[in-house]
């Protein structure tokens, strides 16, 4: 049965792109190693063979050049998917992203659309050190004019990619390396799941309840969804019922879903692999305080990466990034406190 077909997140992304390229001749892909290699993280696997080098373009290591070119192509009737290999590389090309891609529609008073998808790999946990392990979604989400999506599983990865390609706005599509199901990353059973073959959209801006619960809400995104689910399973054995809200999109942020869950559970933990200060965790907590203050029975708590560069050595990195154990400890402390 097609409905039971299982794919890894990486293959779900590649399938989504292939289906949209098949349906729409204006969709094309460019970036470093997206062609013969199929994307360092496999997001464009098989596309070169299927669509040829005019629509699957390997670029020089020239992010300002090819991201800017994506903008120009998008303005002129194309729907480019442009890959920034690691989000950490934004430093060499951020002007094109936040000053140009994200602002042209606004500056033009809505007359010029930039229907472009910027895909990028995020996240750590495999000792790739401080320039290849960041998530940085809080920074992208902070800057107006680009939607930001972060799928945590194969089903959402496909649906969000199709929605992103069809969206008339710039969408930053951040895939966490740990949820892709790559053979060369730590095995993650949650990185494989049922993915319908026919194209479908997962709406941008809608969170999903990844696990229902009643005692505490854990709001998170990306690989931390998996860690939170693992924590929730163990907490259940202790009689604690945790609800996991997978934001899926940071922009637009599903504030209603955050407040609705907090109104139900009265407790909030935010798990964010991004740096702690000035980021997603603060935004989610503020949302709950603004929208569901009277429902909160305890101060919200966050489990995040501290405000340090991501360290290399395994014990350092494992300590720094949110873990199942840290999430459990946070929930236990919160519930003991009442």
């Amino acid at each position, binding site marked *: 049965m097609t409905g039971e077909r299982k794919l890894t997140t990486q293959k779900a992304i590649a399938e989504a792109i292939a289906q949209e390229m098949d349906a729409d001749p*204006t969709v*094309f892909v460019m970036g470093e190693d997206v062609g013969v290699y199929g994307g360092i993280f496999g997001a464009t696997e098989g596309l070169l063979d299927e669509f040829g080098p*005019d629509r699957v373009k390997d*670029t*020089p290591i*020239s992010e*300002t*050049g*090819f*991201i*800017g*070119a*994506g*903008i*120009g*192509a*998008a*303005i*002129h*009737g*194309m729907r*480019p998917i442009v890959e920034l290999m690691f989000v950490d590389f934004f430093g*060499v090309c951020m*002007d*094109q992203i936040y*000053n*140009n891609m994200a*602002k*042209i*529609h*606004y*500056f*033009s*008073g*809505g*007359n*010029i*659309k930039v229907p472009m998808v910027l895909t990028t790999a995020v996240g750590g946990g495999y000792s790739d050190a401080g320039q290849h392990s960041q998530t940085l979604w809080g920074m992208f989400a902070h800057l*107006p*004019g680009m*939607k930001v999506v972060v799928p945590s599983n194969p089903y959402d990865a496909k649906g969000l990619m199709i929605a992103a390609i069809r969206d*008339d*706005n710039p969408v930053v599509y951040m895939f966490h390396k740990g949820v892709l199901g790559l053979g060369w990353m730590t095995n993650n059973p949650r990185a494989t799941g049922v993915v319908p073959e026919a194209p479908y959209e997962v709406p941008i*801006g809608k969170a999903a309840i990844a696990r229902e619960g009643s005692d505490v809400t854990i709001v998170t995104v990306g690989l931390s969804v998996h860690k939170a689910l693992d924590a929730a399973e163990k907490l259940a054995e202790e009689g604690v019922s945790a609800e996991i809200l997978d934001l899926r999109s940071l922009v*637009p942020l599903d504030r209603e879903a955050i407040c609705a869950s907090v109104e139900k559970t009265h407790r909030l933990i935010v798990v964010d692999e991004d740096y702690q200060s000035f980021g997603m965790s603060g935004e989610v907590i503020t949302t709950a305080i603004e929208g569901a203050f009277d429902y909160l029975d305890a101060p919200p708590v966050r489990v995040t990466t501290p405000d340090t560069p991501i360290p290399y050595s395994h014990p350092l990195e494992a300590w720094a990034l949110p873990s199942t154990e840290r999430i459990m400890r946070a929930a236990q402390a919160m519930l003991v406190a009442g």
Partner: protein
Amino acid sequence: MAVPREHLIDMYETMVKIRRFEERIRELYFADKLPAFDIAAGLIPGEMHLAAGQEPVAVGMRPHLKDGDAITATHRPHHLAIAQGVDLNKMAAEIFGRDTGLGRGKGGHMHLFSTEPSFGCSGIIGEGMPVAVGAAMAFKARGTANVALSFFGEGAANQGAFHEAINLAALWSLPVVFVCEDNAYAISVPKTASTAVTDNSDRAAAYGIPGVLVPDNDPVSVYEVMGAAIERARGGGGPSLVEIRTDRLWGHFEGDADAYRTDDFKEDMNERDPLKTFAQRLLADGVLSEADITEIADRMHTEVEAAIEFAMNSPYPAPEATLDHVFSERTVTL
């Protein structure tokens, strides 16, 4: 290349229109900012970069443009927008921050965007160059015989975007013409203090494409060189780099004391004002009469005045319209 008479007249008329537009913006910019200059005050607040003296760069390409061609320009964009035929009323209205402006008051004079003709500009040095490459990719993919023209100052030739964009355009043989408007100063820093080569056109060699220098800020020279570069690009011959020595007659921005340029430099520059010298040449060559010159000035001044009037009579956007147009659907709330 013999320049058809109608092209000479068209170029001259457009130069007059540009100059008049810049003069009127300048007058209205200062009218309510003095005696103590306040950049935030008045009908046109903010920075204002005017292009008086750089008209030849703009008008020389004009007769070679076709529907669908795209231009990316700089923080000093008015001459190029006018020469391409961007709606003058909407452009003026944008500069005055009105709801009828190109961007409904969201962009201002450094962020003028038009769809027909396709024009964009930016306040970041070199930012438009990769965008022109992408426009050319779209033209090639869609099989249109269009060309993207990317204008930038000589200061931008030291930006990474310059090298990345030209490399990509050359690598993929795209229909782009890169045009360096060399007015010799990046704000206060002369090219001699910023650039390791004398001619930025020489840098074309690094990417295996033609590099051509127009040394004299002459509309006819620009016409000839741009004609060849645009024709080459349109015909599938790939990109080229054109460098035009031009003059910024006024300061970097209005209100700039311009103390970094000597009186002698400024005197020489004003002596060779291209509007004056081109008029003299057209008179001498019998292309235009004194009566023609007067008639053109009247007609262009009337057109500019109508645009200014349109702008000043247009309403401001509602303040809460701030929240519109972040995305194509409204998602932003307070």
